[in-house]
């Protein structure tokens, strides 16, 4: 079966967490805004999911999981008077997915998810869950069709300097996506959470700004190299 899915990248910076997804090119008459792959679970946590099989219907699975997670975030606030930690909500989603792998009459959720956010103690977190119900914490990760390539790129380029400033972390996410995304910045959707601030979705223009900056940096790096060699 062809694993046909679009790339998702998550990066955990010091003061910021970044989620980048490859946008599916929409039909002319379709309204872009209804195709959402990044969702806020609460003020300080958001989730991006990747669909794992060729069936389109599984975006619906994601909708169900996201809804349950949102309800759980609020129930937690009601019972225990405090926002969820990213680990708690990840564990909840993972437990939910696992239940569906072990009951009669149900099929597993066909989604993998990247969950990012900030905890009460101000530390950023990134978790990945898969349909079996396991979850792991990551510093930076990619899920989707060419996850391996992107992960290798991230392993090479994820350094303390790269994530120290917000703009550097954003650029790293975009660079990682550009490795595998055709047709450049038009097909990239980006969302960030800064500490103590709600989720911010980038508009196409803002993404373009970063892409042009990256291209400029690349050109300058090329020039330096060619100078040196001469």
């Amino acid at each position: 079966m062809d694993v046909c899915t679009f790339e998702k990248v998550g990066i955990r910076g010091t003061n910021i967490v970044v989620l980048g997804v490859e946008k599916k090119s929409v039909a002319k008459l379709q309204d872009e805004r209804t195709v959402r792959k990044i969702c806020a679970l609460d003020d300080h946590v958001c989730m991006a999911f990747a669909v794992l099989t060729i069936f389109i219907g599984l975006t619906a699975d994601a909708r169900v999981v996201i809804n349950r997670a949102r309800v759980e975030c609020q129930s937690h606030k009601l019972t225990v008077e405090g926002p969820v930690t990213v680990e708690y909500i990840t564990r909840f989603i993972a437990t939910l997915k696992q239940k569906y792998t072990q009951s009669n009459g149900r099929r597993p959720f066909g989604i993998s998810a990247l969950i990012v956010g900030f905890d009460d103690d101000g530390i950023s977190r990134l978790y990945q869950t898969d349909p079996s119900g396991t979850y792991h914490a990551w510093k930076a990760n990619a899920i989707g069709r060419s996850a391996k390539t992107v992960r290798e790129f991230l392993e090479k380029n994820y350094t303390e300097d790269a994530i120290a400033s917000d703009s550097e972390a954003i650029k790293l996410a975009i660079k990682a996506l550009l490795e595998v995304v055709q047709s450049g910045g038009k097909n990239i959707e980006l969302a960030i959470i800064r500490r103590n601030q709600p989720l911010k979705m980038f508009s196409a223009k803002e993404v373009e700004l970063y892409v042009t900056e990256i291209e400029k940096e690349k050109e300058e790096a090329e020039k330096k190299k060619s100078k040196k060699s001469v």
Partner: protein
Amino acid sequence: MALQDVCKWQSPDTQGPSPHLPRAGGWAVPRGCDPQTFLQIHGPRLAHGTTTLAFRFRHGVIAAADTRSSCGSYVACPASCKVIPVHQHLLGTTSGTSADCATWYRVLQRELRLRELREGQLPSVASAAKLLSAMMSQYRGLDLCVATALCGWDRSGPELFYVYSDGTRLQGDIFSVGSGSPYAYGVLDRGYRYDMSTQEAYALARCAVAHATHRDAYSGGSVDLFHVRESGWEHVSRSDACVLYVELQKLLEPEPEEDASHAHPEPATAHRAAEDRELSVGSGEVTPGDSRMPAGTETV
């Protein structure tokens, strides 16, 4: 799920509070009665009287209580412990029905321990208070009576919450609960400062409970004192209430002269020996007057 829906079977909720507690609102009453009215007419008359107090200051949270368990006019136990530890950094003062308090504290201990194991850290005092009030509010109207102050030290420092069995949950710096609380509040409001030293705080707490036991018939026995610090809770002292009160009165007197100090021990021994409350109250009132008069005449 298809099969579950057909059979109308619900999986037990393992994340909720203890499945071993009776279902909220579930009470075995004769047919035709609803639980609330039945309890009002035929239910056991549970009397409760106590003095407990707790206050929060720079160096932690102090919890103090008397030790008399009364059932109407019968003293069931003169040396009970009304301050219950929940975990290393959390104490609860209990007032109301002793049985209810004991049970709900065990449930709270269980819930907090489970959450500690799941999350990797203990919930905060605010969370514990919220949990307790949410659990108890399900039993509203069924004559539960638990009035408690949760005292603890968590990530945000010393915290104090008052929780009542109807679901009330209040954060504050000073709480006193029980039939003796008005008397305790008088002393506390007079002497409380956030920047007290530990010794001053101990003295204030002992003074407040001693004065309350002096005036309230349902409070007495001894005075328990607990202190919650950053490193955990400790039981500071248990002192007899009458002895404590007399010592406090001694402190009030100006420069005790020879005559005054002689005059003092006799009424004091009568005070201690007296079993009957009225006699002790009488001699308590007389003593300060007696010792003050000679001192006054001396200076004049």
